[in-house]
């Protein structure tokens, strides 16, 4: 009877025993060899091999997977080998050793009844059973250091054993007991509850959990065990939506605030009162998606949308998944950039119509006390109303990296209001090269820097790609008027044409009307017979009091329209003249220090990307060439001039182009080309700008200078 019980127990233990782990390592070679010999019934050789295998396996730690897997089998084979060689006592001893390793071991394969009997005899004297009960039943049990199922009856070898039970929130218990052959020992353990445990569930997973201000980690992907099915069902979510359980042990009594945060989700918070030690299930805590929608449109159809530094596609662009928080929204195209920092709140519907403007990347801020606001961002925001350019501050770490790579000192673009470099600034050309490289790095049309002069007075320096000569702009940051003036200066873009009738009207006191002070011999006024000294008394039948009134009347006319004038000539005779209005080109003053040439440079380059009328394009290129010449980019200026074709004549015309070509060639050391160009200019009636001076005088002076230099 007892044997049957034991057999049943053995069967049960085999069923209930924890599944053997998958082979933790390759089969022990000695074991394999021993088995081969055993299977081939070469018991002598098998015995020798098994001795080696067993001693090797015995040397391993108790928890070693190979030991646990192969040692029982090795003992069994040795026992049967010994039995086969007539060493019954030896076989018996091996069976006992086997059972001490695995009390629930069952013989494998075809076994002779005599071996079975011997084995059963060993079982009888070696194995008994223990009935384990633990409260709570979820506690982890270990018998002699090996995990065993809780609340079960297990085979155990006769002798002294130790059982331990442990669970989070409970005090660990360890108890020794003696198992006697032929009787089942009952061990009952009750764990004492000592602290609370929070089992936290969230939906979704990957949520940061903070308890009482202390971060505890993130919830992992689920699903959680079925024990939480009820809580999940109450939350009306599916298990697939819920995270794995985050177990927080040793939670003290009291009220605890738990915060749940995750990017793009609304922060959740709950308060858990713990009045006695217990397991508390928190959740599943649902987090609400915190997103706004964003639509971005661009003035340039080629613009790419970049959000937080990531390119998201071409404009127009829409997303309904813009997480709550601050973002940078950019539009980037060859023509320029649009840059905006937006604050998105849940449910917002943001629409951005981005006007791309040529952009300067604000890279450096010099003279700023440490720890203050990033002056670059302050400047970016203050100059946001500019209609001509964008100033934006790239991320500080990227700027640091780029500046280091360019090997320029922090003060490389720092100037005072008098345009004196501050600190160790590189030479002009190096500055130009560094500026171009850095602008390209940040996808901008130029770079900028801010230098603190004193208190809240700063100087903004801007340097366009290809320029060697920056512009400086002084601003008092806390003075709205100063900021406005600076923006006005930045936005000042010259007009490229102005209406003209080929004469200059001058104001003279005590004379009613406008005196003709100058007449372009090839212009419309000359063709209408108007001469210097004539008096314009009416325009379009309206009396004209002064030159400003005449200019206003002219301003109402379009190109090729007539302006009807009443003229009194020097003899006093009155005549009528219909004069055709023409749009005469204008050119920026190449020496004009009041222009922010770098801003004009980037604006012109941007405008030239859009096709325009050939005449307008020619004048824009001419102005671009003048701007390039002004910043010392003589080669680029010359290249632009090669694309400019203007007719001969007065005003800004071919002579102007020739003079500028001469300047470029001169600067580039090409004396022959300079001389040719200057001679052409000296023979023309053109002006350097629409208001003069005549290029022939300037060219003549340059030719004389060339000859003087040649003589030297």
């Amino acid at each position, binding site marked *: 009877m007892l044997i049957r019980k034991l057999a049943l127990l053995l069967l049960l233990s085999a069923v209930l025993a924890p599944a053997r782990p998958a082979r933790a390592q390759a089969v022990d070679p000695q074991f394999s060899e021993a088995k081969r010999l055993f299977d081939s019934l070469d018991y002598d050789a098998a015995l020798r091999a098994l001795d080696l295998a067993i001693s090797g396996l015995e040397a391993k730690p108790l928890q070693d997977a190979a030991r646990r897997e192969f040692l029982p089998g090795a003992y069994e084979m040795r026992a049967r080998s010994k039995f086969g060689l007539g060493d019954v006592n030896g076989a018996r001893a091996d069976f006992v050793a086997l059972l001490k390793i695995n009390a629930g071991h069952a013989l494998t394969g075809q076994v002779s009844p005599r071996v079975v009997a011997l084995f059963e005899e060993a079982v009888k004297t070696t194995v008994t059973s223990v009935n384990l009960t633990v409260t709570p039943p979820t506690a982890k049990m270990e018998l002699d250091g090996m995990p065993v199922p809780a609340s079960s009856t297990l085979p155990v070898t006769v002798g002294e054993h130790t059982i331990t039970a442990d669970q989070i929130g409970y005090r660990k218990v360890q108890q020794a007991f003696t198992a006697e052959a032929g009787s089942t020992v009952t061990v009952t353990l009750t764990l004492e509850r000592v602290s609370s445990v929070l089992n936290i569930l969230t939906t979704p997973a990957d949520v940061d959990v903070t308890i009482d201000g202390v971060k505890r980690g993130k919830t992992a992907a689920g699903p959680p065990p079925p024990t939480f099915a009820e809580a999940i069902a109450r939350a009306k979510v599916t298990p697939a939506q819920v995270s794995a359980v985050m177990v927080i042990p040793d939670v003290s009594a009291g009220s605890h605030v738990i915060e749940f945060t995750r990017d793009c989700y609304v922060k959740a918070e709950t308060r858990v009162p713990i009045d006695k030690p217990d397991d508390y299930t928190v959740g599943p805590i649902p987090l609400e998606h915190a997103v706004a929608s964003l639509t971005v449109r661009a003035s340039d159809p080629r613009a790419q949308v970049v959000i937080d530094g990531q390119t998201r596609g071409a404009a127009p662009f829409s997303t309904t998944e813009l997480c709550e928080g601050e973002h940078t929204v950019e539009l980037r195209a060859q023509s320029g950039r649009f840059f905006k920092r937006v604050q998105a709140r849940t449910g917002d519907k943001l629409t951005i119509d981005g006007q791309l403007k040529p952009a300067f990347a604000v890279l450096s801020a010099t003279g700023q006390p440490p720890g203050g606001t990033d002056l670059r961002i302050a400047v970016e*925001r203050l100059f946001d109303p500019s209609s001509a350019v964008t100033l934006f501050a790239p991320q500080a770490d990227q700027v640091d990296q780029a500046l280091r790579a360019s090997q320029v000192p922090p003060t490389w673009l720092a100037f005072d209001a008098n345009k004196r470099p501050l600190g160790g600034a590189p030479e002009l050309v190096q500055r130009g090269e560094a500026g171009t490289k850095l602008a390209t790095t940040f996808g901008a049309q130029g770079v900028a820097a801010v230098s603190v002069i004193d208190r809240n007075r700063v100087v903004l320096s801007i340097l366009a790609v290809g320029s060697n000569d920056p512009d400086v702009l002084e601003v008092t940051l806390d003075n709205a008027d100063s900021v406005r003036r600076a923006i006005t200066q930045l936005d000042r873009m010259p007009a490229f044409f102005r209406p003209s009738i080929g004469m200059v009207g*001058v104001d*003279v006191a005590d004379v009613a009307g406008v005196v003709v002070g*100058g007449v372009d011999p090839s212009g419309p006024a000359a063709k209408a017979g108007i001469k210097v000294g004539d008096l314009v008394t009416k325009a379009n039948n309206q009396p004209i009091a002064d030159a400003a009134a005449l200019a206003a009347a002219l301003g109402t006319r379009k190109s090729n329209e007539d302006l009807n004038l009443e003229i009194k000539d020097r003899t006093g005779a009155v005549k009528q003249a219909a004069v055709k209005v023409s749009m005469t080109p204008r050119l920026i003053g190449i020496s*004009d*220090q*009041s222009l922010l040439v770098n801003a004009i440079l980037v604006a012109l380059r941007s405008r030239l990307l859009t096709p325009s009328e050939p005449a307008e394009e020619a004048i824009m290129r001419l102005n671009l060439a003048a701007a390039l010449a002004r910043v010392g980019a003589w080669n680029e200026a010359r290249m632009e001039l090669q694309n400019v074709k203007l007719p001969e004549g007065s005003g800004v015309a071919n002579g102007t182009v020739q003079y500028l070509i001469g300047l470029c060639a001169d600067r580039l050391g090409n004396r022959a080309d300079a001389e040719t160009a200057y001679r052409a200019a000296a023979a023309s009636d053109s002006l350097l700008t629409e208001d003069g001076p005549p290029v022939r005088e300037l060219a003549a002076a340059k030719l004389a200078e060339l000859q003087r230099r040649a003589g030297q």
Partner: protein
Amino acid sequence: MKLQCTVIASLALVAALGAQSPREEELARSQFQSGLDFLQSRRFAEAIKDFQTVVDSFPKSSVADAALVQIAMYQLDVARNPEAAQAATDKLLKEYPSGAAAPMAYVMAGRLAINKGRTATDVEAALASFERVPRLFPGSEAVAAANYYAGHTLWLVRRTEEALDRYRRVTMEYPRSIWAARATLAAAVCLVQTDRAVRALEELQRVRQEFPGTPEAATALNYNTIIYRLYVRPPQSPYAFSGKYIGSETAKFRDVVGISVNDAGQVMLGHKTGISIFDAKATLVKTVTAEEPSAFFVDEKGRLVTVRRDTLLAEGGDYAAIAIPQKDGKLRQADEIPSVLPLSNGDRLVADRRGKAVIRVGINGKYLKNFATLNAERLVMNKLEDIAILDRDTKSVVVVDRDGKQLIKILPKGTGYELDNPIDVAFDPFGNIYVLDRGKPSLHVFSSKNKLLASFSMPEKDPGAFPRPQAFGLDGAGRVYLFDDRSQRIQVYQ
């Protein structure tokens, strides 16, 4: 916009927290602004007091150097005290070498150098100081001022083409700066003086267009008017009677000794019983009583000085008696002085009728030296400090430089004119010389190179005719204010 204001406010807070003594800075700025306001209304004493307070009490403020510039400019331009101006400039250069006003200190240094004299050394020192400004402060707007004054220096020593070049540089490099307007005005003078008057018209008009409402725009209008009148309008009629009179029909001024018109358009008429002053609307505002003055002038402090016999008597009571040393060592009182000319350094040129000479005296009347041996009826000066002397004996007008060296001589007879009894003379802003002839009642205009530009006379019966002209003056636009003995009023021609 709201974001901008927030940013500005937060930066202001940061700045305020970081400032050393914002209260003191605020006080200094207020005081400085007060000085500027007084300066604007020409209350110079109050203005200087404010500026000096800024310098003495707030030397570390951001406006202390600017206050020193104002002091230096006042001392040079108004008080005519170059030593004090030099002291202020030196202090500025020494104590604020990198301040915002440092560039102007170099400009002042250059101006002071040329103020000392017009020798080659003075000129080079001045130009060198001006040239430091673009070298040391390349982005400063003081570069425009420096180039302007460099041009002015060159013009003073008659290097007109070089001056024009400098002025052109200012207009090309700083077209929006007020110095461009001033440079254009100065360039116009150069162009007129080098026979390119009509070219100046376009450039002057640009001043009116780019700087409307400024004093420079008003000056440009005046210059345009003169150029138009002399070089563009038909030469046979440079003037016409405007129909305006100054003084009432009942006033009956007698023994008129001279007419002067100032920049504000006030007309001063010297006559038997004193000096009558009329405002720009021809209203009599004041009469300074004087017994039979022989001449009058306005001194460097803006005081009216009348001349009677040998004494120069200023408003407020200061006087100077003119005594001339004779060959025998004795002093002779200058008992008939038809004209006195104040010089920029405080000296005076005095026409000594009896001695038939023009003498130079100090501000206190002390005889310094003989200037010219001519029986001067009238003495007038242009911006170059050339002096036109109407010689009563030879009926000619001699123009000399400030050292007395003759430049031109307008003879009594020449091509297109004849002077019968020249009685008065004046310069216009371009240095053209206007001569009033009483013998053949007419007004003749000569260029600075002695070329007749225009002549003007009227038939006796025409309204505004001047059959017995006695004296005249010119305003900024070249209008003629002429006193005629027949009408006994000032008649205005334009």
